[in-house]
């Protein structure tokens, strides 16, 4: 069985905590991280969120680093480009390439570091939310924010049927593989086409069946949401406030500090 983000969220101990608290923590991290001029604050945020996710949410560290590696890879590439091609100031180091001077300026290096830090902190904030709050819980948050009902309902059904179709797709892919459907590039292309076709038809049929089964239960345009009252505990408020104060202090004291 493939384990995806949502599966970790469903089993996370933080699932039982107040959804709004988690959203506020996430939003705070993103806003402060992005508005910081120095790379220090975002790094602190990323560190805190990482610890929270691994320690409180019980996500295996290996898995966490693996999913963080994907955006980190993209960022590192862009960071190198930003460092070389932007910013002003004294040259930190440089070399000649076929008569062109390529160099990294202090401004460029600072900019690159800030971009790196902001991205990592933003991602770790989002991972904190998505690894502790399954979609099921987010639907009731959407409802509370006055999202249109039909939008939420469609989203809920989409969520549910993603898994149904994923299972079908894995089944078909397996059936194709055992009959050598992916032995070379050409056949892979054909197989993936057939997979998409049959998945499309399945989705269509599923829609019809869904309509019949919903009607059989007197569907009249209302789905209930799983809402639970989860008061925020004092210890949670204390920890969150401590985190907020720490980040704000770091934010204030490092506002003009650049690494170089």
């Amino acid at each position, binding site marked *: 069985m493939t384990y995806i983000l949502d599966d970790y969220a469903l089993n996370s101990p933080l699932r039982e905590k107040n959804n709004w608290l988690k959203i506020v923590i996430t939003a705070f991290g993103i806003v402060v991280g992005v508005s910081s001029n120095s790379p220090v604050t975002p790094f602190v945020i990323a560190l805190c969120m990482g610890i929270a996710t691994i320690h409180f949410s019980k996500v295996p560290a290996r898995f966490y680093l693996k999913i963080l590696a994907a955006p980190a890879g993209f960022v590192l590439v862009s960071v190198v480009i930003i460092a070389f091609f932007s910013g002003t100031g004294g040259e930190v180091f440089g070399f000649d390439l076929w008569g062109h001077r390529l160099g990294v300026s202090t401004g460029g290096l600072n900019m690159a570091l800030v971009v790196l830090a902001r991205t990592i902190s933003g991602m770790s904030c989002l991972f904190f939310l998505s690894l502790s709050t399954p979609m099921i819980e987010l639907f009731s948050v959407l409802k509370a924010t006055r999202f249109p009902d039909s939008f939420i309902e469609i989203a809920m059904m989409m*969520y549910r049927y993603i898994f149904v179709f994923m299972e079908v797709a894995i089944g078909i892919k397996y059936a194709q593989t055992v009959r050598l459907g992916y032995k070379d590039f050409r056949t892979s292309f054909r197989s993936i086409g057939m997979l998409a076709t049959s998945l499309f038809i399945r989705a269509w049929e599923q829609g019809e069946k*869904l309509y019949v089964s919903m009607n*059989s239960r007197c569907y009249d345009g209302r789905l209930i949401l799983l809402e639970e009252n989860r008061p925020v505990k004092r210890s949670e408020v204390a920890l969150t406030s401590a985190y907020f104060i720490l980040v704000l202090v770091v934010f204030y004291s490092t506002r003009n500090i650049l690494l170089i």
Partner: protein
Amino acid sequence: MTILETRDLVYSYPDGTIALDNVSVRIDMGKKIAFVGRNGSGKSTLFLTLNGTLAPKKGEVLFHGEPVKYDAKSLRELRKNVGIVFQNSDDQLFAPSIYQDVAFGPTNLGYSREKVNSVVQSTLDYVGLNPLKKKPPHHLSGGQKKRVAIAGIVAMEPEVIILDEPLSNLDPVGADEVMDLLNELNYFGKTIIISTHDVDLAYRWADHVFIMTDHQMIGEGTPEDIFRNDELLQRANLRKPQILEVHEELRRRSLVKANGCPKDIPGLVRTLKEPELMWVKVSPDVKVGDSINLGLLHGEFALNYPMEAVNGKVLHIHEDCMAIVELSRHYVRAGSIMIYDTDHHDTDFLQLFIANGDVDTVGAMGKRSKLIAERDNIRLDITSGVIDRSILNALCGQRCLIITHGGMIYHAFERISHYIEESGINIHVDIINENGDISTLATACTGQMPCAGSSEEHSA
């Protein structure tokens, strides 16, 4: 009393293929009905006309004797009372969590929030899935999904529950749990209709069977009549239930009594004949055909058990009052079956009872009771076909405990007393943790036991 009825129903799909060809059925209230036929014989289409999803081309559907109307309000009323559980649970479970899915029907019926909550809670408790209520359906096994699907229908409190192939893709234990649930629902007065191509299931479970083939209804009746009708089965491309086939083979070799139509293994065992002849000296007034009591035999005369009560039927009387007698042997101490009700569960009592009560086998029926047994570390010897196997074990002199709850207690009682009534072998049945209403039921059920037959055999 008829609850659902169709008259000369004709339905064809938009492309002209006929799906139902003059189908007329009458379904009685409170019965267990099975529609049997091969895949594509029209069962599913018929079911969709029964709750108004498909409107027939000709003919009509009647619910409580009233023709079904196809306006929104009447359909709503019909669908509230006729619930369908679809073959593939994934077609039906569309909400992101179990709770939401079961709440779907009650919400649509316009219940208040509190009422929805209490109905959903009690239904989830009933099917033993409360601990999973916040999970998404894709984290469940096939059997669990099926029980959620049934719970979604039960929560709407319909009068009729229709299940399309309820046991497809289920493992034997999951299948058993679903069938236990259906029996319990039926006991509380719901009319249960299933479609199946499993003749063994239909034969063993149903009160009334309909046979469909090529979109037509070709036969109906009690399972005993239907499944002994070779010509009908051949027309429907169905095979005979295995138990009947075994019984027939045994009968050909004259190993079983001639009449009788066993539905399960205890029934089959009961029909077995023990042809054994013996010279016996009888008193002069005994005539051919009389039954005589030969008393208790033990030691080398008791063939199968430590003590046997032996009765004989006089076949022929010779000179000097010597007669040829056909013997029938019965085990003297049939075991007993004790039923434990987990609705009044007391861990210490149960464990003490099992430890001290000389219990040979323990069986559990129903998901909730199995969970309780698992939680309390009670070793279960029987988890499927519990009633049948307990009867068989009791016949061999064992003391059997069945751990169960709710309507399944009534069901177990009924099955066992039915067996006692038919076989004349007295198995002692008791509920060990009695409370008021159940003990009255216990006496009511045991009171039905025919003591006449058993007392003469068990002269000991």
